């Protein structure tokens, strides 16, 4: 009852060498329901394809079997051929007699016999193929960018400029990320705020960007093109719609909290903005340090605010956001070096980590840009220790890539702002970016001393109290160096955010051994992930400098655009469907599906499958006891028929 056309490909000699293709075609002709059986040198070539189109029209074929290379190779090609000839593209079966037959045997008898068996199986299966039309769903045009650092800002601006609506979600009370904490950036030494704050403002002004600070993603539902994401808007206790940023409330506040922005080098008020150019420039109240929340009285800021913007009863609220694609740009954290007791971080006041030093340099920082030690004195000699926690099997095996360069930047700024001698304890000076080597040479000329040997220990100097001693070996001379210094800077390892694994679980991503987000392919798809429609950019994927981060932000924006620029999207047709007559309502499918596609309809007491969520894996079809679920294109009877055909000879 079906009219099958079998087309055997020689693939030049690739197949013909160990499979007698003409004999295979003759064998095919003898099989029931096979109307046309031909062999040709190159089926995937244009003449080969035309031969199929003509035969379909001439013999009114309704099933096509192409016996050639792997379906993973040319299934799409031949599906297009069927569509071109007016036949439904799913009425096609590919028999793999190249990768799995001709290339894996030298014996032409064996090869031909196996090819016949595989072809016979395909004929049994072809008889039961049904035409399928892939569903088309509409795509939500908006995009969400999680993380308001330079990567998130750049991606958001790119997308907004194309006219797309962007939701920028930032956990902190201001966007800007770590870059906003820096004073200068290498290698050009241009001021970080100068190049970043204009972008932050354009994000604020941009009509297409909805900036949501003090927000976190709490739940992700839906699928590519139709994500339904719940955002938790953390209570700020200040109504930003009323506040006009006069900041008079911050003057009166008695509360004392450690300033996270200044890496807890200094205290801040309970109601505060992290730094002057914060965007939005509106304060929030920190519950832990606010005396009202702690003791129940004060409310000075409320009195000071003419706009009546202070609202102590504010609660966390949840906002539902629908988007078509998501870019994760959640950035990095600096490793906590307290466990490395040999360096005395947290024990000796003279030991700083990299971000603390960045804040020291920053004019908006705790010391207004003056480089002073915690006791206020100016350091006379400074040691910068590279690779602390990085390139270390016992801590983080990866190289954090940017420490060499920012260490060099530090030494320049130290030389500029103080009269101190600056020493570097390094293993390799990695300056591979554009203009990096030149920057390194410039720093050498600024009379900075480089000791080739990893810092082994920092101790308090026995004879000069308050000073530190760095112990290391200068491997070039082989000498053991004990260097008395006033200040030690640890260029510690860059690690993923503390909550990176939770975000990965929310967006169904996997993370690598170190905890960074896993890209789909390290070389060919560095910005997309295994979850359709979720892209990554910046240090959350692996440590990188600002130029690479921005480049990745552009890339991720482009990838997100490929999805949201189309308003329709074709879904895979090989999804599953429930035959309600046979469904006994056991809900096994609902329990097992990783995508939540099946749902139980309580009145009809049967399950239904949302084909948009279904990925076509067929798990529900195999757990269904009354085999009521039809996994299109891999239905039970198609698989059984193919098995029967394979086992016949």
């Amino acid at each position, binding site marked *: 009852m079906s009219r099958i056309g079998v087309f055997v490909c020689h693939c030049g000699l690739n197949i013909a060498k160990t499979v007698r293709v003409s004999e295979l075609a003759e064998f095919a002709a003898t099989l029931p329901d096979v109307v046309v059986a031909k062999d040709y040198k190159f089926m995937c070539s244009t003449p080969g394809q035309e031969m199929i189109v003509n035969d379909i029209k001439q013999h009114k074929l309704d099933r096509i079997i192409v016996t050639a290379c792997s379906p993973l190779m040319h299934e799409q090609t031949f599906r297009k051929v069927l569509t071109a000839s007016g036949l439904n593209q799913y009425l096609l079966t590919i028999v793999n007699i190249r990768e799995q037959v001709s290339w894996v045997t030298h014996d032409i008898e064996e090869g031909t016999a196996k090819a016949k068996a595989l072809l016979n199986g395909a004929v049994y299966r072809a008889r039961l193929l049904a035409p399928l039309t892939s569903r088309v769903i509409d795509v939500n045009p908006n995009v969400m960018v999680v993380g308001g650092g330079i990567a998130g800002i750049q991606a958001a601006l790119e997308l907004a400029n194309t006219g797309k609506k962007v939701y920028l979600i930032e956990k902190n009370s201001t966007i800007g990320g770590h870059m906003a904490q820096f004073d200068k950036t290498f290698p050009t030494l241009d001021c970080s705020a100068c190049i970043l704050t204009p972008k932050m403002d354009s994000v604020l002004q941009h009509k297409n960007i909805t900036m949501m600070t003090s927000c976190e993603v709490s739940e992700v539902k839906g699928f590519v093109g139709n994500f339904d994401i719940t955002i938790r808007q953390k209570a700020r206790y200040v109504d930003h719609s009323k506040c006009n940023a006069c900041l008079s409330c911050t003057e009166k506040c008695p509360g004392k909290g450690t300033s996270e922005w200044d890496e807890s080098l200094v205290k801040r008020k309970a109601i505060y903005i992290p730094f002057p150019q914060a965007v939005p420039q509106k304060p929030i109240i920190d519950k832990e340090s606010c005396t009202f929340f702690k003791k129940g009285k004060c409310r000075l800021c409320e009195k000071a605010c003419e706009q009546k913007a202070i609202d102590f009863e504010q609660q966390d609220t949840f906002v539902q956001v629908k988007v078509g694609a998501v870019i994760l740009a959640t950035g990095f954290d600096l490793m906590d070096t307290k466990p490395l007791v040999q360096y005395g971080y947290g024990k000796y006041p003279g030991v700083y980590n990299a971000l603390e030093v960045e804040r020291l340099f920053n004019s908006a920082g705790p010391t207004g840009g003056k480089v002073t030690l915690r006791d206020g004195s100016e350091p006379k000699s400074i040691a910068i220790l590279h690779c602390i926690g990085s390139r270390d099997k016992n801590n983080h095996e990866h190289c954090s890539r940017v420490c060499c360069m920012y260490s060099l930047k530090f030494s320049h700024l130290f030389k500029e702002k103080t009269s101190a001698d600056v020493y570097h304890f390094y293993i390799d000076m990695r300056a591979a970016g554009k203009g990096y080597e030149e920057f390194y040479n410039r720093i050498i000329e600024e009379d900075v001393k480089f000791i080739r040997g990893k810092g082994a220990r920092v101790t308090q100097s026995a004879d000069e109290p308050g000073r530190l001693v760095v112990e290391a070996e200068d491997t070039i001379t082989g000498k053991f160096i004990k260097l008395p210094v006033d200040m030690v800077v640890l260029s510690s390892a860059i690690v993923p955010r503390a909550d990176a694994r939770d975000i990965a679980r929310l967006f169904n991503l996997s993370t690598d051994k170190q905890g960074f987000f896993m890209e789909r392919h390290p070389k060919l798809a560095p910005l997309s992930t295994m979850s359709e429609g979720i892209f990554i950019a910046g240090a959350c994927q692996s440590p990188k400098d600002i130029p690479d981060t921005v480049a990745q932000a552009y890339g991720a924006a482009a990838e997100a655009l490929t999805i949201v620029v189309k308003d329709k999207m074709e879904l895979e047709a090989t999804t599953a469907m429930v035959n309600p007559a046979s469904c*006994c309502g056991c809900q096994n499918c609902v329990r097992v599906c990783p995508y939540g596609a099946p749902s139980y309809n309580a009145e009809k007491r049967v399950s239904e499958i949302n084909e948009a969520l279904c990925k076509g894996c067929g798990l529900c079809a195999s757990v269904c006891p009354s085999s009521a679920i039809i996994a299109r294109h891999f239905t039970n*009877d198609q698989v*059984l028929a193919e098995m029967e055909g394979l086992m016949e000879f």
Partner: protein
Amino acid sequence: MVISFKQIEEKLKTEAKRLLGESQVSIVLAYGKGYDENHPMPYVARNPSDVDNIVFNEYCNYNLARYLVRYPAGTKIAVAVKAADSRAVIQLIQEEKVKREDLVLLGIPVYGMKNPKTHEIIDGKTTGGLYNPVLYDILLGDEVHGQAIQSPYDVLAAYESMDKEARFAFWKKEFDKCIRCYACRKACPMCYCDPCFIDQTKPKWGDKSPQSHGNLMYHLTRFHHLAGRCIDCGECSRACPVDIPLYLFHKKVAKACEEMFGQAAGMSIEDKPALVNFRVDDSDKFLE
């Protein structure tokens, strides 16, 4: 002290009358008179007057849990449950076929039920070997203790030690007896699928004729469908007109599931059925 069946019958009647009287439940599933004393029948009492026909004797070993799925969702049902039947109820609750709040479970702790055909005492050899119901609201008699607790899987030793050829011959002989009346499927509280996979014609998993390969496909697939769900009540073997010892195979699969997944069927409401669940650290040794 062997609990007298009469006492349980009286308690069952009083409870049933009370529950129906106060219309806490719309039906009571219990046991009623059959065509003679040693052939009682499952009985549904719908109003207090029906309660008089309720009986309880040593032949009332039907698993009433299988009738629960027959009534529309939400009907308040009281059901008399012995040890294995209570596990069946738990398993049905786990699979959300019935809700715990719709059920009033009348627990019957009992020892000494007899198989109507052979008149032998039913024990761990053909059932799960428990005597007290695992879950109940009202207990119709004090718990049975002091009976020899033997693992329900001891009876498997003889079959497991058989060599492969002998065991295949044994099962082929048994499955060739099958006349495909599907009494085992209908007697099983866990087999509530209607239509069952074997009734399907597209695809046709097995032939309708009672040949050995059709029977084999039917029985082996059913054993798989009950893996981690069978509560070892032995009803299927007792319902079989040609006495195929199906309980043996179900016990073997239940034992394997317990060893591999560390979970016995129908023992706690919080469990999830074994084969619709997974542990990332399931060991690959299962597959050796």
